[in-house]
């Protein structure tokens, strides 16, 4: 199949960017979106031009490295799919595509489609540690956990931290990511000891990084390649207010 691509090109974080047009021919519908870009880059390199910079690592939808918006949809329009797992059969022959970096103040563009998502690392870092007993490894099943909590914590843990939620949100909010990480630990017995400090620190780091706030557009949930539920945002609001207002009293 043939495609008309409009790709965002930006030399570095300070230079202004613009779209560059490419016609790619010989795209197989079995290729992933990133493989299609690989083919484009090979052609560019052969022609002595600068290849399009984009983030990727596992190409299996588990690392959260790949990040770009296709026609305004982070990771493309297909539900529950990272762009590395998006196949070209999702597109039509002759289609024109607009490929852009994730857009948000919290994710400045470094080059072309690559953004600096280290704000997420700093949110995680601000969460600190969980206290565990050292010594001999204990039996895996010695801590009882409610089945429901284990299930929901597992759903939260599915977050790969790619940033699609921020990229999709009209407010540039990082509340889906932050709430998934907070709830993941808050739901489990191991997370109880530092629950209050962690909730407060992560929410405030999120705010200090310049992300927006949720007004329940629900764009994040539908863009999330792991379909993380916006219920976590609601739970985070409750946990933050509780920790902030009553945390010192140890409630």
């Amino acid at each position, binding site marked *: 199949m043939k495609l008309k691509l*409009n790709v965002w090109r930006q030399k570095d974080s300070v230079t202004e960017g613009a*779209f560059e047009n490419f016609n790619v021919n010989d795209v197989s519908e079995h290729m992933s979106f990133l493989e299609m870009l690989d083919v484009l880059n090979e052609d560019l390199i052969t022609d002595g031009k600068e290849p399009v910079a984009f983030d990727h690592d596992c190409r299996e939808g588990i690392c959260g490295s790949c990040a770009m*918006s296709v*026609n*305004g*949809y982070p990771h493309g*329009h297909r539900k529950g799919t990272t762009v590395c797992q998006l196949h070209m059969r999702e597109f039509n022959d002759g289609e024109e595509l*607009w490929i*852009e970096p994730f*857009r*948000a*103040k*919290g994710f400045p563009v470094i080059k072309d489609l690559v953004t600096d998502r280290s704000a997420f690392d700093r949110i995680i870092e601000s969460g600190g540690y969980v206290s565990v007993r050292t010594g001999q490894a204990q039996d895996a099943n010695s801590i009882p956990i409610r089945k429901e909590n284990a299930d929901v914590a597992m759903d939260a843990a599915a977050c790969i931290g790619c940033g699609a939620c921020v990229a*999709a*949100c*009209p*407010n*540039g*909010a990082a509340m889906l990511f932050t709430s998934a990480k907070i709830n993941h630990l808050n739901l489990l017995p191991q997370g109880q000891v530092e629950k209050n400090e962690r909730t*407060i620190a992560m*929410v*405030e780091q999120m*705010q*200090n990084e*310049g*992300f*927006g*706030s*949720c*007004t*329940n*557009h*629900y*764009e994040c*949930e*539908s*863009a999330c390649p792991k379909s993380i539920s*916006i*219920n976590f*945002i*609601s*739970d*985070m*609001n*409750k946990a*933050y*207010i509780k920790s*902030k*207002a009553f945390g010192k009293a140890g409630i």
Partner: protein
Amino acid sequence: MVLAITRSVIFAKVVVALTGLVMVGFIIGHTSGNLLIFVGQDAINTYAQGLKDIGAALWVVRSALIISVVLHIYYTLKLTALNKAAKPIGYKKTTYKRSTFASRNMTILGLTILFFIIYHLLHYTFQVTHPQFKDLQDSLGRHDVYNMIVAGFQNPIICIFYILGVLGLGYHLRHGIQSMIHTIGLNSDSAKKYSNLFAKLITIFAVVGLGSIPISVLIGLVGGK
């Protein structure tokens, strides 16, 4: 950097939700009261006199309402500015999956309501735009609210303005009520189902209830000779 709770966005969101709830309560009460115009002149004038007779206690409710309006506007404008700053560049192709006209225009809809409220107060509450409304009395010597409303809606331009204001309120409530319920943490599957239903019902009640009054006066259903 540790934030004071009042500087946190989640605190702001919760204040917006709770003050919104107070105002939704007011809208339900206000719409129900106004619908008495369809019962008749005596019913709505008795109701209006009854409100006046509450006296000081009415001011407690009014104060709560005024504080809610002020806080709601202060925090929504603050959050809107923050959210705009957090998304300085949009996409070339803007595509949405779940957000709605209402959810994307809450601030502008809210400001439309504010503009409407100001005119509405000057029109019927303080009667600045129509000082002759002050002298209307019914046969029992009470302020004749029934005829004031009828007289106020003789002008089609004013009626259209009211209908637009009420439609703006409708969109604002359609998203706002559901959003409020989610923000304050009611997020079980059944809560989500009911919040959606609840938002629709209150919106329909407010839009149809309030909108029907100028329309009924205009077509002569209320106050027609």
